[in-house]
């Protein structure tokens, strides 16, 4: 591994930073959405759930296209970028975070929602009879009970962001250290026929994916056994 070019380490660091930040934001943004989806009785609730789930089905090129326009000077991204004198959020780390959050949202919201739904209303009712405020009940009862959902959501959100390619390719501009993530680096190596680098990185990604899915399955099994 020591023989890997320096640029690869930059890409690895960038990819981890992107996935980690995206996961943190997704947990913060996704939890209230998941809570609302699990509890609300609004008739349009499933409409919102569908919008959240859409990145599962949409080609990344659709999101990439919308983002390219939305992040640019004639979209909201350009207005935000103007605050610090830039013209666009495309080609920035922040732009990639925005894209990744949209792209990985369903992977985080779905498992957390399922956990909230699975616990039913009784634990919270019990907490209420013990005079816990709704907020306290949420933090001391609902969140701990939904831990497996949070765990699955965080792992999936992280892994899915690491595996993201199409959107980054479309809005990133391949800037080393800022937007050139691992998947794009692999693409470049393949296109320029640097098979050695491409196969080392691809092998690493395959091992990573295997480890993530296996770990999750094993942990879910254990949690299931403890819970049941």
């Amino acid at each position, binding site marked *: 591994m020591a023989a890997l070019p320096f640029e690869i380490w930059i890409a690895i660091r960038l990819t981890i930073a992107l996935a980690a930040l995206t996961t943190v934001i997704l947990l913060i943004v996704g939890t209230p959405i998941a809570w609302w989806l699990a509890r609300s009785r609004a008739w349009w609730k499933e409409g919102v759930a569908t919008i959240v789930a859409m990145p599962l089905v949409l080609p990344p090129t659709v999101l990439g296209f919308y983002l390219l326009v939305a992040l*640019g000077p004639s979209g909201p991204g350009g207005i935000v970028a103007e605050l610090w004198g830039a013209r*666009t959020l495309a080609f920035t780390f922040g732009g990639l975070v925005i894209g990744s959050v949209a792209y990985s949202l369903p992977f985080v919201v779905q498992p957390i929602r399922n956990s909230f739904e699975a616990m039913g209303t009784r634990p919270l009712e019990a907490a209420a009879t013990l005079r816990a405020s709704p907020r306290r009940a949420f933090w001391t009862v609902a969140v701990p009970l939904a831990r497996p959902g949070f765990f699955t959501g965080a792992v999936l959100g992280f892994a899915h962001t690491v595996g993201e390619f199409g959107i980054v390719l479309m809005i990133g*501009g391949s800037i080393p250290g800022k937007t050139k993530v691992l998947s794009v680096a692999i693409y470049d190596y393949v*296109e*320029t026929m640097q098979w050695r680098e491409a196969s080392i990185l691809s092998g690493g990604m395959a091992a990573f994916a295997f480890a993530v899915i296996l770990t999750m399955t094993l942990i879910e099994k254990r949690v299931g056994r403890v819970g049941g």
Partner: protein
Amino acid sequence: MRAVKMLAAAVALFAACLLGGQADAAQINVAVAANFTDAAKDIAAAFRQKTGHEAVLSFGSSGQLYTQITKAAPFQILLSADQDRPKKAVEDGFGVADSRFTYAIGKLVLWSKNPDLVTNADTLSSGAFTKLSICNPANAPYGAAAIQTLKSLSLYDTLQPKIVQGQDITQAFQFVQTGNAELGFVALSQVAGNNDGSRWIVPQNLYAPIRQDTVLLKTGVGNEAAVAFMAFLKGPEARAIIEKYGYAIDAGS
């Protein structure tokens, strides 16, 4: 019952379409460097009108296309944006040796959607922009030419932090088109058809000529339509189209 009959009719119609396509006009697949996209479409249309054969075009950077060819992509012809890859195709046994020729000589242009931004080399040295779009120099000759130009002007080191890369020239163009980059190095062919924005045609002494070669691939040997396409590409109709898009024609070929 009615549904079954309708389904059968649909299947029959679909089969007829498939077979009909194979009647006498042949179909070939051509890998086209992205800068040549618009010209290739026009040429394919003219080719179809003249011969009845259909050239199905696939676009990408020369690097992308070449990698696919080495992995047995179903192309019969490569229209590259450089000479190296067609040469390499012959050396590596994918291309037919004596079929290679220069079909166009590309020109690099600095382009902006803003009608007042680009005037000449001073636009670059002024640095009055945040993002300069080019295409991936490792994959695409126009990207390499852009880097050469910046180096010839001794501006590469100062402008390097502002460079954003598209995977091929189409994406480099699109970054400028959407306004995400104020300006970018694109192919003259991409902006030859209009007067939008502002542009500076980069003088030839700042970068090595972009000689774009084509090569017949081994998969196209004995394929009448593929051979016809190569001949058509050398002919006056195709040349007129190529020149219309701002390319120069190689006097020697």
